[in-house]
């Protein structure tokens, strides 16, 4: 494989059914339902997806959910805030472990 993350692989996502159609059908049917308007609007779900895409650093998902967020009626300011939410949680996830470090230091040190 000459390179990872080829953009056209996103359009070919459906081909994953080749190895197991039943699981692929079940996944895509579930996936479609998840993003329908519900207690959360389709726009809110798309913004959550955009934030998660940044947290898991998936270029396919960032590509897909940047366009999808725009189509669902979000704008750049809302999308930037969503990415900051992912950033805050990732940063916070590191920092909150600092309390473990702090407790251990206190147990260890005079």
């Amino acid at each position, binding site marked *: 494989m000459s390179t990872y993350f080829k953009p056209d692989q996103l359009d070919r996502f459906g081909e994953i059914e080749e190895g197991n159609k039943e699981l692929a059908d079940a996944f895509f049917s579930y996936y479609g339902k998840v993003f329908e*308007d519900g207690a959360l609007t*389709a*726009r809110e779900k798309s913004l959550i997806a955009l934030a998660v895409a940044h947290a898991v650093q998936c270029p396919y998902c960032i590509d897909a959910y940047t366009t999808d967020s725009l189509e*669902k*009626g979000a704008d750049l*300011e*809302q999308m930037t805030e969503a990415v900051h939410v992912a950033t805050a949680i990732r940063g916070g996830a590191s920092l909150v472990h600092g309390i473990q470090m702090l407790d251990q230091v206190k147990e260890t040190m005079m």
Partner: protein
Amino acid sequence: MSQDANEFVSLPVVDAGGDGAMVDVEGPRAITSMRYRRAPLTEPAEQFRLLDAAEITGGPSGTGSFEADLEASGWPTLQPETLEIFQINVGKLCNMTCRHCHVDSGPDRVEENMDRETVDACLRAIDRSGAHTVDLTGGAPELNPHFEYLVDACVERGLHVMDRCNLTILTTGPYQHLPEWFAERGVEIVCSLPHYRKLNTDAQRGKGTYEKSLRALRRLNDAGYGQGDPRLKLTLVTNPVGAYLAGSQASLEGEWKEALARNHDVYFDQLLALNNMPMSRYLEWLEEKGLVEEYLAKLVNAFNPATIAGLMCRNTLSVAWDGTLYDCDFNQQLDMTMDLPDGHRPHVSDFDLEAWQQHVIRTERHCYGCTAGAGSGCGGAIA
């Protein structure tokens, strides 16, 4: 940013069909129309050359030929159904110069404005047409000096009248009485608001547009519009502010209603979500960005045969400022005159309902804009 910051500038425009006097209106800082920049892309032939150069492999026929895709979907010829809507483009003059405008309108388009004689020819044709709705568009239709005369004549005939309004015109010059004037006559207001927030609205329609649009919407609310009264219907229209397709109309309507009510105490009745047609100033923008092929592929890949029966060209007639007849306002801006049988002249003075019913609708690659996804047209989503 302060709420009353006025980013609009004074734009004297010629009252073209009246006494030639200048009318003072405000608008966003104008860009020059393609026509006045003498941009080569102003020519429809140049626009078709650019669209036809795109390599297209999607769609039912895989050819990128709209006609072939219609045929592959069971529509060997595209013909009208029942004439319901008589759409009149009264002129290209506008106080705004939106980035995506398919009419290439602006304050510099002072020459193309419908005169009284043609307005009267339209009224005579309306009487022969059986249409229940008269749809007025432009430019800013309100800038035509015969606008109020035309609206009154249609209302007197008991017809439903729609005004395709850019909103900002209602906040400027001698047009500020219009919200109440429209309400007295039960005119439906169909107005452009690409987004419920400022960023995208001003990016597409010019700096300061969002604030002025909200001011106009409040005036319309005060006049009784947008409160669920079917006689005073307020319809918003959104187009994508970029190279993507319009999302689900019902879903977006919910978002727009909630956000405008919560943030601005502004109300409306329905939202129409339209795709941008790959033509005129939007096509020029796509070309600048190198996105022509990508956008066209997006439209063709989303080709939806279920939209064909409800295409607006099947129930709508489009009349230009000079009385020439077209299948839609997009064909009108691309100089694709209506192809009537038996040598019928495509002009409103000679309008003949039977000839219209028998004619074949003209299509080109831009038509993929109306058949993509849930479909698109002046009436919003189709399928």
